[in-house]
């Protein structure tokens, strides 16, 4: 099954995404920090999709995205930003950095599932 990783410094946000995705044919891993996720990726984990929060301490979503693009195994991995931010300038910045898409919290569960299925080309 495709591996999808979620990165968010909020335990309750991760719980919400877990409850939404638990019926999908995917394997989910969750991280409370981008630093921890990046460490595992550099250690050999190869996610098929990465969904990350924007505003996080230590390493924010954009910094995480930039770091992912320097790792050969995730240089082209789809990345979705899942955030409270709605500002267009941030979306444009994310697009320029190679972001795949933008989802605003609180997300609509059906639409999150559709977005994951679309990126992973699930039937």
């Amino acid at each position, binding site marked *: 099954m495709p591996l999808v990783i979620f990165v*968010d410094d*909020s*335990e*309750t*946000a991760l*719980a*919400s995404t*877990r*409850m*939404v995705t638990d019926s999908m044919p995917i394997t989910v891993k969750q991280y409370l920090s981008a630093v921890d996720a990046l460490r595992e990726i550099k250690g050999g984990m190869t996610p098929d999709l990465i969904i990350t929060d924007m*505003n996080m301490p230590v390493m924010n979503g954009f910094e995480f995205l930039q770091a992912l693009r320097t790792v050969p195994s995730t240089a082209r991995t789809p990345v*979705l930003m899942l*955030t*409270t*931010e*709605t*500002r267009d300038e941030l*979306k444009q910045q*994310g*697009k320029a950095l190679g*972001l*795949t*898409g*933008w*989802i*605003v*919290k*609180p*997300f*609509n*569960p*059906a*639409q*999150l599932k*559709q*977005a994951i299925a*679309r990126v992973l080309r699930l039937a």
Partner: protein
Amino acid sequence: MQFVQTLNGLLEHVKKVERETIALTKDGQLQLVKFIEKNSLRLDDETLEVMQYQDIIAQQLSATIEAIENMQGHLHLFTNSFDQDASNMEESFGEMDDKLTSVLKNAQEKHSAFGGKTQHHDYDDGVEFF
């Protein structure tokens, strides 16, 4: 500058209450999630959407805590400056007002930025692909 100390104490109290609120709402939410997952309950989409509010509440309160801490920093600098040269009181008040105005503007921007769709009800529900 007794009033500054009193104001600082009040701000500390507000931060404490906000931090407790973040912790309580988080604990409550996680307990609820534990019950749901333990009993394999299925929630409808509307409920799953409002279950995300704790994250937004925590972000909003954290932003106001940050604003309060910035304000306290400026108050501290103001008090030090005033203690060194009381004749510059008017100038010190003016500088502090400028800084606090900046703190307020920043806090208001974060209120909007961290609210997601709860602050932008007209926001398109869809996922935006680039």
